[in-house]
């Protein structure tokens, strides 16, 4: 059996918005899962730095935020109860946590449903609460796996706007998406991945010039082909 990810080597700088793109089954989610500590690499290593100093992967886990593609909350609980629970698991002091929850809900337009069960939310609202939980701890590094999939344009706008704000405050963002136009606008640098290997790394401008294509979509087709993937 071939490894899901192999010989991958790249660096993400502080405050950078880094996109990872590739066809289905390319290894994007596996790569992010390893960087978040959910999966352990069978070989190789991941290094984390804060203020120029290397920190252990265990310490790094306290400084990262993760927004998975699947909804990662308890649908039976209210938005407020979910945020309080995950906030306390992050170790955020109670007073600070409640202030943070109110700010986030306001920013994401969810204040009015704070005490409503998440299972009653629309897809867009669920996506926004999914993001809110992932950024509760003001992460140094934020991993986003398809954060805007299946949402309306308003929700997408709110999510991207919030991510831009976070990034301005110094949060490094690693991002995967199939919304390539959105990615073109959002990312500073990108890595193209296929069959577990990096097949392109750099700024979008440099890569499109190098491969003589107009945009990210054409670049992906040029490098990964037109054959549909499982």
């Amino acid at each position, binding site marked *: 059996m071939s490894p899901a990810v192999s010989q991958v080597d790249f660096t993400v700088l502080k405050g950078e918005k880094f996109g990872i793109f590739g066809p289905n089954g390319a290894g994007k989610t596996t790569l992010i899962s390893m960087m978040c500590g959910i999966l352990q690499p069978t070989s190789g290593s991941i290094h984390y730095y804060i203020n120029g100093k290397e920190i252990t992967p265990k310490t790094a886990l306290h400084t990262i935020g*993760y927004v998975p593609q*699947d909804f990662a*909350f308890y649908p039976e609980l209210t938005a407020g109860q979910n945020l309080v629970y*995950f906030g306390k698991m992050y170790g955020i002091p109670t007073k600070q946590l409640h202030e943070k929850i109110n700010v986030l809900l306001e920013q994401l337009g969810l204040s009015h449903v704070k005490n409503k069960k998440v299972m009653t939310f629309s897809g867009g609202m669920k996506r926004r609460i999914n993001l809110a939980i992932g950024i509760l701890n003001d992460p140094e590094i934020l991993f986003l796996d398809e954060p805007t999939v299946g949402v309306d344009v308003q929700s997408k706008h709110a999510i991207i706007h919030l991510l831009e704000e976070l990034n301005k405050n110094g949060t490094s963002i690693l991002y995967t998406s199939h919304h390539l136009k959105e990615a073109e606008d959002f990312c500073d640098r990108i890595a193209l991945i296929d069959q577990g290997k990096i097949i392109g790394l750099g700024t979008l401008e440099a890569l499109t010039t190098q491969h003589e294509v107009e945009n990210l979509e054409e670049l992906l087709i040029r490098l990964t082909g037109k054959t549909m993937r499982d």
Partner: protein
Amino acid sequence: MRKLLASIVKELQLLAHDKVGLLLLYLMPVVLVFIITVVQDSAFKLVNDNQLELLVANKDKGALGDSLVAVLKQSGNFLLDEKNDLSEKQLQEEGLSGGKLASIYIPENFSEAIENNTSTITQLILTEFGVTEDTLAVAERKETSLTIYFDPILQENFQYTLVTNLQTILSGMENKVMLENLFEQMGYDEIPEHIAAKMTGEKTPIIAKHASLDGQQKMTPNSTQHNVPAWSIFAMFFMVVSLGGNLVKERLSGSFVRLMTIPPSFMYTLISKMLVYLGVAVSQLFLLFCIGHLIFPSMGLPQLQIPDAFLQLLIVSILSGMAAVSYAVVIGTYAKSQEQANGFGAVSIVIFAAIGGIWVPTFVMPDYMQTVALFSPLHWCLEGYYVLFLKNGDWNALSSSIIFLSLFVIVCQILTFVKLKMQNYL
């Protein structure tokens, strides 16, 4: 500690939102204990308190048939429906169609045969004592029988009870006739009054007591005293469906993936689940014991007598709860889907209950099944409660239950830890 507290609060919130789950955890055991106790109490009363409806066809031409019917009436155990014109075949049909659980057919030669047979014995006794040498006077034995027809639905133990009852009555009647014969042979018209009074009034008393380990009989064994603890244990272990499924759901959910990025969150999740469900298990017991003690008497059921050994009761309850929770956690850890956890969990608890003596006491099982029962955690929970609720036992009597349940909890926890560690969850 703060994270553990947050996890406990989250578990309580999830439980509070799950109305159906709460009903299953609290209402189902109440209904179960109530129904089983009512049913078994009725069965108990059928033989001990209630009057059994009896159809009688007395064809006897002598007086003993009437005497038998009179004794049956006086005993108070039977509600007699006399239909002397029925033939033996009609008696069977009438019994079945009329809903009588038993019918008695007294044959025509009933008195004649008994009198003849007792007279024979009297003659033999007198010959043996040398009072008479007229052995030729000994008549041939005449055969007779009393026939009882049981409704096929009547359980074997009830049938046995009725037959034993009738045998006792018949023996008494035969003895009386025999003595009358003896006195008659010796020239008396009847048994002297003072002897007859002594015969009926001075029987050796039988004192029925239930053994207790402290020598004081405070508890009365009855359907409540067995059923409330037994079915509470069953209901408590049935939380495998709720907790086991809940754990699988948590493991397969997106929230679990997020918790994996916040170590050691899953450990807190697991511990909080166990603590919350242990609380549920103990509160289930408390609720059921309260119902048995306070509400059952007003419903005509025997009152649950709570043992004085409160500390021992608490320890056995907590250990039983921990055993139930640990088993549910093992199932939830090893199952690959909620369906697997629910299906295997429920069936295994039913099997554990069956072999553990929840339905039928283990002492009535074959030897090999009594050995198999030792492997059921429910058996050890029940043994612990038997010691407290029926035998007034002390720590020493509880030791085997406490040791086995502790071992069971430890083994389950180790199995859980190993599996989760292998999966990198802890």
